[in-house]
């Protein structure tokens, strides 16, 4: 390196990286290229963090309406300038403008298999909704409620002492003021994992027995049995919630557990045909929508044999 790069040039490149990653998606090739660039200078890492933070912060805008008052004249002008494409743009803007108060404060989210959705809420909170989940968020002036009909979601709750945030999962209630936690429905009851702060949980009809679940803890709450709280540790909870980044991180999970995890996200199901094989444990990091990578890894490292059909990956002892 002959000459020291200016801070301004670094800022410029960081912004170009953000735009490019947003356009092309973060695949392994691009990630390697980015890592190589970042490794060149500490200042690049700082500039990239800053640009990324500003860019991601704008995701909060998804609860806003497109600018209304001054958009119409602007749109007319653009329509003249760019012809056919402009019409589509104005239609989109008009549809966006129809968002009413109700639409802003009540949100229904229904995810398909394999879909993971980040939904910023109008109170400043964030919901990340996992595969095959149905939730309804209702932000009232005195109370914020989320009904989790099925599936799993993680919430980062904006602090507002005057407006508690309550998740209803069947008979289970989880209350937070400003904190971050996930709730996953079970056949009966729910699993609660806390990533920040403290939440309270109880069952409907048993309001005398409220349990407190803290940062790093996992609790199982159900009307049929006394609640259990286990201190899993923050890292372990983060690992279990890796789906928020579209990942499955295995760390000593059995192949059977891993398979059922992948099967939550994909139509083509992984079936471990051999019970002995199913009990083996595995360590690795995979994308939720890439069961094939897991199957390949297992066949390569454990000497197993895989058969791929239209509906399943069948895994046998090699």
């Amino acid at each position: 390196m002959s000459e020291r790069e200016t801070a301004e040039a670094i800022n410029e490149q960081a912004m170009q990286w953000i735009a490019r990653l947003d356009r092309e998606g973060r695949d392994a090739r691009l990630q390697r290229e980015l890592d190589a660039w970042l490794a060149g200078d500490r200042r690049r890492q700082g500039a990239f963090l800053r640009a990324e933070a500003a860019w991601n912060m704008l995701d909060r805008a998804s609860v806003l309406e497109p600018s209304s008052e001054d958009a119409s004249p602007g749109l007319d002008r653009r329509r003249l300038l760019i012809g056919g494409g402009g019409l589509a743009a104005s239609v989109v803007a008009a549809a966006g403008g129809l968002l009413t108060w109700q639409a802003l404060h009540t949100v229904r989210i229904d995810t398909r298999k394999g879909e993971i959705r980040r939904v910023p809420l109008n109170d400043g909170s964030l919901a990340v909704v996992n595969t095959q989940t149905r939730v309804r968020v209702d932000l009232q002036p005195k109370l914020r409620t989320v009904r989790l009909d099925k599936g799993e979601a993680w919430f980062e709750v904006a602090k507002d002492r005057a407006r508690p945030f309550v998740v209803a999962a069947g008979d289970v209630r989880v209350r937070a003021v400003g904190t971050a936690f996930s709730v996953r429905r079970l056949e009966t009851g729910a699993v609660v994992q806390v990533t920040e702060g403290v939440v309270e949980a109880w069952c409907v009809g048993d309001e005398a027995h409220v349990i407190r679940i803290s940062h790093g803890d996992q609790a199982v709450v159900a009307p049929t049995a006394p609640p259990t709280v286990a201190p899993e540790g923050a890292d372990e909870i983060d690992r279990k919630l890796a789906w928020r980044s579209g990942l499955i991180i295995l760390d000593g999970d059995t192949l059977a557990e891993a398979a059922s995890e992948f099967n939550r996200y994909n139509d083509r199901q992984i079936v471990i045909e051999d019970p002995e094989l199913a009990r083996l444990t595995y360590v690795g990091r995979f994308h939720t929508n890439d069961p094939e990578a897991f199957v390949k890894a297992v066949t390569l490292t454990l000497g197993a044999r895989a058969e791929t059909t239209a509906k399943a990956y069948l895994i046998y002892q090699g």
Partner: protein
Amino acid sequence: MNESRARIVAWVGREVLPHEADVRGWLRRSLVSDGEVEDVIQEAYCRLLSLQNTSHIASPRAYFFTAARAVVIDHLRRSRVVRMETVTEIEALNVVLDEPSPERVAAGRRELDRVRRLIAALPDRCRRVFEMRKIEGLPQREIAHQLGVTETIVENDVVKGQRLILKALAEGEEAISRAAGTPERDERARDRRGD
């Protein structure tokens, strides 16, 4: 992106960026050149990357000031030329930190307002691109299609918009609301981009 990094990025956007203008103001009072301010800011952000967890940080504002101060002290040690003013300012850091910290209760609401103002202040097509990307959630390819322009133009608008937004954040909230209040400011912003 792993989860702890995602958390740091969100935390920086929510809790640190809003204080960047103040840190810059403090640095300008104590440092030699504007060029060096930018270096210090980048290195201070880089220090935040080593955080595993942010829940123990009661005042992100103070934390960021302290990170910037550590970078300045590092620079001072290397340069060997220490200006008296710098030393005074560094020692005066505690005074800066005593300013009332913003009320946390309405943090989410405030952040939303900030985002609204930042996007509203962008010049015409650039603002439209940001609205379609961030409010309507359309991918860049779809935005290009709907606006009848190439994907490269949209990607360039994303860079331009970031440049203006980061500049607004660097100058502070007041500059943002001023920019949002006067439409002709858009034109000036566009002119400035040329240099």
